[in-house]
């Protein structure tokens, strides 16, 4: 393999990294090639002793993305790290990725529940406040009559809103724990893979 081929394959496997990180990795290997040539080695000898560029690229990429996800646990970063680790092949597609995606689905469902609690709470209490105006435009809407009933609806709305807000706060915490757990799992996998290669 020539230097150009080696670096092209390496670059292809570093997609999704910051330009700075990618350039640093590429320049390390370019420097290695130029010094090797200086000492009289052929490009194919140099690339042979370096190893498989695709493998080097995938490993470096996964390592950097997992590290980034650990520093800044937002959905995009965690997702990228999961996918990069997946490309290394230590995610068994059925037994690990399947249940993991199930958990992701569960998180999404819980989020939807929390958000709809907030929204329905808001809707109920706002309906009571704006009832005179709403019934003006939509007279066929059956509305709770009487002050006591309106107040009850309003308070129920507020209660729903409060419960929903608590649920959202809980979900924010749970999501953070979920991200941290994911990153920890990826890190432990990377360590195993580093030791066994």
């Amino acid at each position, binding site marked *: 393999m020539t230097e150009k081929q080696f670096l092209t394959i390496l670059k292809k496997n570093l997609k999704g990294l910051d330009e700075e990180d990618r350039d640093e990795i590429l320049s390390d290997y370019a*420097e290695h090639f130029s*010094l090797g040539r*200086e000492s009289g080695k052929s490009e194919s000898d140099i690339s042979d002793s*370096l190893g498989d560029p695709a493998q080097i690229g995938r490993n470096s990429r996964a*390592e950097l993305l997992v590290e980034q996800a650990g520093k800044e646990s937002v959905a995009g970063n965690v997702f990228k790290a999961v996918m990069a680790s997946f490309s290394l092949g230590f995610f068994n597609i059925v037994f690990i990725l399947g249940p993991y995606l199930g958990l992701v689905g569960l998180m999404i469902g819980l989020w939807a529940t929390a958000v709809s609690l907030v929204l329905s709470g808001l809707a109920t209490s706002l309906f009571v406040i704006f009832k005179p105006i709403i019934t003006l435009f939509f007279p066929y809407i059956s509305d709770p009559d009487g002050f006591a009933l309106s107040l009850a609806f309003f308070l129920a709305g507020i209660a729903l809103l409060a419960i929903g807000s608590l649920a959202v706060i809980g979900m924010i915490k749970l999501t953070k724990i979920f991200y941290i757990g994911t990153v920890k799992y990826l890190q432990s996998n990377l360590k195993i893979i580093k*030791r*066994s290669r």
Partner: protein
Amino acid sequence: MNIQFKKGVLEICVLSLIYGRDYYGYELVQEISENINISEGSIYPLLRRLSKEGFFETYLKESPGGPPRKYYKITGQGKTRTENLKEEWNQFTDQVKILLQKDISGDAQHRGPDISRQKGEKS
């Protein structure tokens, strides 16, 4: 030599060499691959990781008739790390040596004849 062995000692070798003096990547890779049979490409990710963890600083230095070289220099944190790892390593290998000596000096009576015969055939 076993691949797990090599991976494990690579970090301590890299730290220890750079502890001694500043190296540029190519030179370090040659030094290591002369003694340990390992794919050279795996040393650069290790250098990057150890730099990120704050054990090395890097600087560029012009070289006669070539592109500038990236040198690695040990930091205070790196020195502490190297010393700790070396101490652990020495303790560990001393203990392993003691255990291996026991095997040679043949206290086979503790193990029973079958096992000792199997071991003898393998080695």
